[in-house]
């Protein structure tokens, strides 16, 4: 691990100032991703600004919805009674990720900002445009079984690894941030970005901005939801494909429906056109298949991840069936309902 200055921030203002005035400075909270990346020399911050003392760990009621502080741990959010009751897709997605120990340390803000788990990103000895811009992409034409099939560029085919963010995308949460130019709110869909020509930028957050909270909308779709995660082993593995689906039904007619995919793109992947195909239609396998077909028609698989296209198509259909039936995927009994 490289040597770094350490600053403990007592206030948000102090934290923002300490990051702005330090060379290659980073905020640190749970540390579960950043410390790991520092051990691999992928991250070499000149300064760490410890934000764990800031009063940002609350989960609060706000206008009939919930505001989740950036420092609320993944465990605190997943087991919060209000989240479990009103936003169960979020609780389920968080519990599908990582381990008990990691969820106790990792924070909401850190989960949003975690880096890809692309092998080439982690391996200093290989090219990676995200780690070292201009060095090339080892995954294109390389070992890319776990990589993206949507929204890739010729610079980067990495995926965003979060489960939590996939649920937040389906819920249409917003992210409240602040920095030297003041506070602003970013819709979740615009928080993460596609790699394009700048794969080193994961998000639209500036380096000197800090996440304050994730704000959930009032509608949590507690009646019809699922988080279906498909992976190489049944626990503690990143998604090959995951689907967060939420729905509102009027009898058997779909009144509202959204779904987001994880493990397939540089950000939680949504397709509004495909979601539009569900509206006003009967909640049947045929309806769901039409939406799934629309999504995967835009897939651009690489040499080793073609299987993800069919996997994604089937996962979307199954997730929408689970949501419609009110039988969400269990995160402890791993049999797929």
């Amino acid at each position, binding site marked *: 691990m490289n*040597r770094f200055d350490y600053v403990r921030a007592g206030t948000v203002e102090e934290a923002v100032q300490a990051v702005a005035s330090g060379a290659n400075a980073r905020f640190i909270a749970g540390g579960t991703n950043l410390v790991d990346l520092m051990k691999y020399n992928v991250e070499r911050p000149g300064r760490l600004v410890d934000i764990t003392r800031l009063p940002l760990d609350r989960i609060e009621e706000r206008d009939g919805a919930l505001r989740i502080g950036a420092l609320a741990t993944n465990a605190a959010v997943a087991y919060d009674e209000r989240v479990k009751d009103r936003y169960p897709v979020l609780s389920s997605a968080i519990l599908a990720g990582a381990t*008990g120990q990691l969820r106790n340390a990792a924070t909401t803000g850190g989960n949003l900002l975690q880096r890809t788990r692309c092998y080439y990103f982690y391996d200093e000895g290989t090219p990676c445009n995200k780690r070292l811009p201009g060095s090339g992409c080892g995954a294109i034409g390389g070992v890319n079984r776990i990589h993206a099939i949507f929204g890739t560029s010729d610079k980067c085919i990495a995926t965003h690894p979060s489960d939590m963010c996939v649920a937040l995308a389906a819920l249409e949460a917003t992210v409240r941030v602040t920095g030297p130019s003041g506070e602003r709110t970013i819709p979740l869909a615009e928080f993460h970005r596609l790699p394009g020509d700048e794969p080193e930028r994961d998000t639209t957050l500036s380096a000197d901005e800090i996440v304050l909270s994730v704000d959930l909308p009032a509608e949590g779709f507690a009646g019809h939801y699922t988080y279906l995660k498909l992976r190489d082993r049944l626990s503690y593995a990143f998604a090959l494909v995951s689907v967060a689906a939420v729905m509102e039904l009027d009898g058997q007619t779909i009144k509202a429906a959204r779904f987001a995919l994880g493990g397939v793109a540089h950000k939680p992947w949504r397709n509004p056109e495909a979601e539009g195909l569900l509206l006003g239609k009967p909640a049947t396998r045929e309806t769901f298949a039409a939406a799934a077909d629309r999504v995967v028609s835009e897939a651009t698989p690489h040499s080793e991840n073609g299987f993800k296209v069919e996997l994604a198509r089937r996962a979307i259909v199954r997730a929408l069936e689970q949501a419609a039936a009110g039988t969400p995927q269990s995160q402890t009994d791993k049999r797929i309902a």
Partner: protein
Amino acid sequence: MLIESGSPIAADTKVEIGLTINGEARRLQVAPWTTLLDLLREQLDLTGTKKGCDHGQCGACTVLVNGTRVNSCLALAVMKDGAEITTVEGLAKLSGGNGLHPLQEAFVEHDAFQCGYCTPGQLCSAAGVLAEGHARTRDEIREAMSGNICRCGAYTNIVDAIEDVIQSGAQG
């Protein structure tokens, strides 16, 4: 050097922090890049906590920080200033009795280890699972313990041991 909020501490400076480790309050000098795991093992000779992968993947380094289980390899010691740490060396004391912690008794009873390298992490993680109170069934125990690898493959007996303690109502 003492930490002052907002004041940068230069990279080559050791800082003074306070930790209560297994019930004993201690003042310690640490470099900012020292992980809690390295502090315990290298500076304090508390070698019960094991270094397995050093990347948060194996769970051998699991300790309780303020009663919550975390991977000590991914925690910077300086950031835990003021915390209460329980390692496997302090687990028995945590249960209040004179003997072993109920989980330690159960691990012996159920032969829940072979080489023993992962055992301190398994025990601290299981103590965390009991405190969290979300695991009741075998499936739930297995899922809750998925952050602790046992390369000998003693999983079945580890689940038996933890299930036994949960069913007995002992909370440690």
